[in-house]
């Protein structure tokens, strides 16, 4: 199917690439269908693009690239909600907030986006605040 994207123009995506967010994501609770679009080959960044609302497109990246010891607990309820049977099916992304100057951009480690890529179900977790998973973690340092 054809979709309009926020950054990459019109794109053709397959139905089986669509990821369902049954609860939407905080701030956009009604938007439930997204796709992940690679930004460029070899880029560590990707776009989490709503297929329902073109302007809803986030820049995402693997959090472990920016914080090697990043970790959090996934509760049994979350596992159930995401229909996870094998942790291999999981992939974790974090949403970036880009700012000028670029070096002041941050990555959200308090609310990781967890995707069961086999079942195509996802959610943005809300973790309790701790100093090891801040809402605005500077990306500077992880970047060259």
């Amino acid at each position: 199917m054809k979709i309009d994207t926020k950054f990459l123009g019109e794109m053709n995506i397959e139905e089986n690439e669509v990821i369902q967010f049954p609860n939407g994501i905080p701030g956009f609770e009604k938007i439930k269908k997204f796709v992940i679009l690679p930004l460029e080959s070899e880029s560590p960044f990707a776009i989490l693009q709503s297929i329902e609302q073109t302007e809803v497109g986030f820049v995402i990246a693997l959090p472990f690239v920016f914080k090697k010891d990043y970790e959090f607990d996934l509760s049994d309820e979350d596992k159930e909600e995401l229909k996870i049977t094998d942790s291999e099916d999981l992939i974790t992304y974090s949403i970036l907030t880009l700012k000028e100057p670029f070096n002041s951009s941050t990555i959200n480690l308090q609310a990781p986006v967890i995707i069961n890529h086999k079942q195509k179900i996802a959610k943005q977790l809300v973790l309790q605040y701790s100093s090891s998973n801040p809402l605005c973690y500077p990306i500077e340092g992880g970047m060259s």
Partner: protein
Amino acid sequence: MLVLSRKKDESIMIGDQIELKILSVDGEQVKLGIVAPKDVKVYRSEVYESIQQQNKESLNISKSLLEQLSKKNI
């Protein structure tokens, strides 16, 4: 909004599985005890609100920022 008055050690039930208990009152600070099933998420509302806010802010991406991003490598 339903408004109820409670004293220390009194509680209210939300449905038949969620109990909110007033543990202590000290000036402007109220300490609440919450008993809820595991699948009910409980967090301070400002935590959820701060994430909603951050997500909205994350959508503000200028062309220039995106171009800078595509030049970056780890």
